[in-house]
C-alpha cells in the first residue's frame, strides 16, 4: 500500500466521514480508495483518447 498526503475540501471530508459513521465503509481510507478506483475506471486513457479522436472526426466531417 502507498501512503499519500493531500488536502481536500472540508465538506468533502465531512461527507466521507458521514458514510463511515453510517456504516457504509470501514474507514475514510476505504471511501477515498473506492472513489479513486471509480474515477480511474471512467478515465481510462484508451477511452479518453477514443473520445477525442471521435470528436476530431466529427469536427472535420460531421453534419451539424
Amino acid at each position: 500500500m502507498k501512503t499519500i498526503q493531500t488536502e481536500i475540501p472540508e465538506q468533502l471530508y465531512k461527507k466521507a466521514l458521514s458514510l463511515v459513521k453510517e456504516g457504509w465503509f470501514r474507514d475514510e481510507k476505504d471511501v477515498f480508495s473506492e472513489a479513486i478506483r471509480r474515477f480511474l475506471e471512467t478515465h481510462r486513457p484508451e477511452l479518453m483518447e477514443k473520445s477525442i479522436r471521435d470528436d476530431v472526426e466529427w469536427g472535420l466531417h460531421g453534419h451539424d
Partner: protein
Amino acid sequence: MIKSAFKIVCDSGPIIHLDELNCLHLLEDFQEILLPDTVYKEINRYRPLRLNNSNLPFVLSAGTIPNNSTLITLCSIFSLDVGETEALALMEKNPQAIFLADDASARMVAEQMGFKVHETIGILVRSIRRNQMEPGEVLRILRGVPSQSTLYIKPSLLDEVILKIKKEYNL
C-alpha cells in the same frame, strides 16, 4: 453563414476552456446555449462576467434533477457533480440538442443515454468546417491549449490531432 439547426446544452468545462482560448464566439453558431443554474454559477466563479458580457445566445434554466430513473442511477454510479447532473436533466428535456462536456464520466453517461456528445476539441476543429476560423488559426490555438487553458490533453494525442488537421487541409 446560416447557423446550425442545433441547440447545445453545456457543462461548465467547454465554456471555460473556449473562453481561456478566446474562442467562446464559436458557440455563436448554435441556435441556443442552454445552461442550468449550477453550471452558470460555476462558470461565473471561474470566468466572472463572461456570460453577461457576451452576445452569445445563452438560455439559463433552473437546475433540476433528471426524471428518468436510469439517468438518475447513472449520474449516481458515475458520481457526476450537481452541474453535470443538471445539464443532463436539461438534455433529457432537449434530446435533440448536443451535449458539450469535457468530463469523461459525464460524456460516458450521456452516451449511455443516447445523447449526442462533443467536447472542446471538437468545437475547435468544427470551426474550420463551419468557416468560422481558418485551419492555420485553429492549429495555432490547438498548440496553445497546454499553456493557455486548463484543458488537459496528452501531448502525443494533441500532436496527432494537429497532424490530422494538417493532412486534411494539406498544410
